């Protein structure tokens, strides 16, 4: 069987039923790409026969990705976990955990349990309590160069799997930002000031994304911070990810095209 038009078994709830959302004019200094698709990004099921590696359709992560709607309507709320500068991927997910890939819920839970377990022991508050799978913190606040190091998608994946919805960092390492957008596991947002110095782990925060950027409110301190707009990543996020975006601009055919 020659490879014909690729079939698209992915039943991304968002992409087909998505209303044509106004293109959000997000601007930012950062990169592109997102697939805010609520699925498990990497996946081989060993149980399936060699010829067909089934990618299990994950249950949508309880992701504010209702981000199938425009980013402008997205809100995140929860406790924040505060980190400083240069948190590299090995601290986010120790390299030896990279043999896990979340192809099924069990391994997804496993990788979630290790999220941010690479932080030095000086971080006495753990992101995920040993023995648990989910974190009680849904928003991560960080300093500069968050996610530096490896290109492994395990980094944003484990955070999302553990329940993180968004990261607010001062700046990002580029591959991590790109992977966050591509996997849709966490929304990578940028602050305008050094929010990590003014928030404490455990503070209750709300993030509201609006057309022209976003707003982070720390309910514990009462302070608010502007967030930078997503920028080039906006159209890709809105389209539903890089694959959906590529279909939209005609780079790859849509499933409906015969």
């Amino acid at each position: 069987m020659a490879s014909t038009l690729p079939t698209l078994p992915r039943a991304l709830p968002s992409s087909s039923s998505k209303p044509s959302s106004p293109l959000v004019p997000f601007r930012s200094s950062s990169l592109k790409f997102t697939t805010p698709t609520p699925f498990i990004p990497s996946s081989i099921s060993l149980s399936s026969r060699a010829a067909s590696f089934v990618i299990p359709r994950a249950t949508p992560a309880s992701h504010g990705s209702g981000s199938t709607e425009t980013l402008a309507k997205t809100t995140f709320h929860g406790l924040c976990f505060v980190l400083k500068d240069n948190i590299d991927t090995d601290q986010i997910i120790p390299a030896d955990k990279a043999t896990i890939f979340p192809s099924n819920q069990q391994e997804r839970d496993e990788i979630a349990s290790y999220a941010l377990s690479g932080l030095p022991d000086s971080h006495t508050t753990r992101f995920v309590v040993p023995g648990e799978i989910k974190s009680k913190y849904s928003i991560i606040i960080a300093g500069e160069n968050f996610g530096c190091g490896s290109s492994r998608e395990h980094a944003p994946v484990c955070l999302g799997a553990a329940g993180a919805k968004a990261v607010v960092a001062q700046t990002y390492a580029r591959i991590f930002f790109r992977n966050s957008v591509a996997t849709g596991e966490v929304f990578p947002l940028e602050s305008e000031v050094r929010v990590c110095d003014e928030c404490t782990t455990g503070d209750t925060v709300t993030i509201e994304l609006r057309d022209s950027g976003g707003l982070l409110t720390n309910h514990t301190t009462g302070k608010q911070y502007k967030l930078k707009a997503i920028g080039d990543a906006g159209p890709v996020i809105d389209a539903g990810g890089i694959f959906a975006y590529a279909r939209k601009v005609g780079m790859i055919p849509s499933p409906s095209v015969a």
Partner: protein
Amino acid sequence: MASSVISSSPFVCKSPAKKDLGFSSFRKPSQISIHGCQRKSISRKIVSVMAPQRSSSTSGSVKTGMTMTEKILAKAAEKSQVVPGDNIWVNVDVLMTHDVCGPGAFGIFKREFGDNAKVVWDSEKIVVIPDHYIFTTDKRANRNVDIMREHCREQNIKYFYDITDLGDFRANPDYKGVCHVALAQEGHCRPGEVLLGTDSHTCTAGAFGQFATGIGNTDAGFVLGTGKILLKVPPTMRFILDGEMPSYLQAKDLILQIIGEISVAGATYKTMEFSGTTIESLTMEERMTLCNMVVEAGGKNGVIPPDATTFNYVENRTSVPFQPVYSDANASFVADYRFDVSKLEPVVAKPHSPDNRALARECKDVKIDRVYIGSCTGGKTEDFMAAAKLFHAAGKQVKVPTFLVPATQKVWMDVYALPVPGAGGKTCAQIFEEAGCDTPTSPSCGACLGGPADTYARLNEPQVCVSTTNRNFPGRMGHKEGQIYLASPYTAAASALTGHVTDPREFLQ
């Protein structure tokens, strides 16, 4: 139909620089290029990939000078001109993946293009190199290699450097080892091309005058299906290194110097272009070391203008034609750094950051527990030659366990077969043995990134290690409290002899 055009796409506009689409950040929406059906090597399978209508993006525009990277990307996007900030669809020449990320990348490819989809793209452009977690009993690590074998069989992927007998790497004729070194050694790196890999140190290949950068599984899955990737053109920082390279200095010292100068985020989203008389004097392996750690400065890619050294290396390993490119004289750079290399001294990066630079001689009181020589950064043939040369010159024994991890099978063979210049015919292996080092082990990424618990030379205790690897963030080689000093092979060897961080001039003058 495959050839129909999405003329209604909001992303295509008739004139460049149109801003009313709401994407002021898209400088030129018309930059979306047509699909490269015309490219010589694209197979008929591409019929399913469509292209939006080409719009005239160059009418009336004045051609300005471009940097090497801009030129490579422009050509790969089939445009005559790009500027930093442009988001463009780029044709990819080579995609590399390994055991850790390959399964994920192929999984995404299948999810998006169908379980029975064949890589739409030319399967000879995919290179699969198991290297990360190979010599381990970790079942999951082992399964990753098995999974890649299945994919490669199914997709008819020619370049799969497989390993089946984990007990003896030499029993595996196809197995290479560390992907970035193998790519170069097997002739997959060529000037002017676009090479992507599911590993951050893919930037190593920039040494060949090509655009090379690391990507994640999702992007890789996309490339597998389309042969293209959406990239933003990076601005270029220029680093001009002039002066005669001192005999005790290596490329590792140069890049640690630079990272210490600009910090771990100093080149984020940018290209690092290296040129100058010193660069011209470097061998290919030294150039690879330099470009390898571009990612440690946050860089998107590193690049070195190709020259006779490059052509000689490449032409000995591949017959695929290539087209070198060079920065225009009037190209724009966002930063210019100049170094007089003759004045530089051996440096290390102290725990726990690659930009925590210090002079090696100022760390001489730091007692160490072990030395590690290996990885894509410091485990190539010349790296071992250098270490052996220093050991031979010193004529002493190491004071701490010294672990040697050749990057590839070929490097391992060189260590055992090649005579070290000035050592009376002795090979590296002989010199290492006489110096009391550990026996060179099976080639792989090894403990550079820790790895499964049974990885050779993994830091399982809070020890101090001088290493020729590329990162020293907490826990990088295993134990969270491990202290890693990044160094050149010379510095690593010198440190092994004294049991302290040591400037190689102690033994090399």
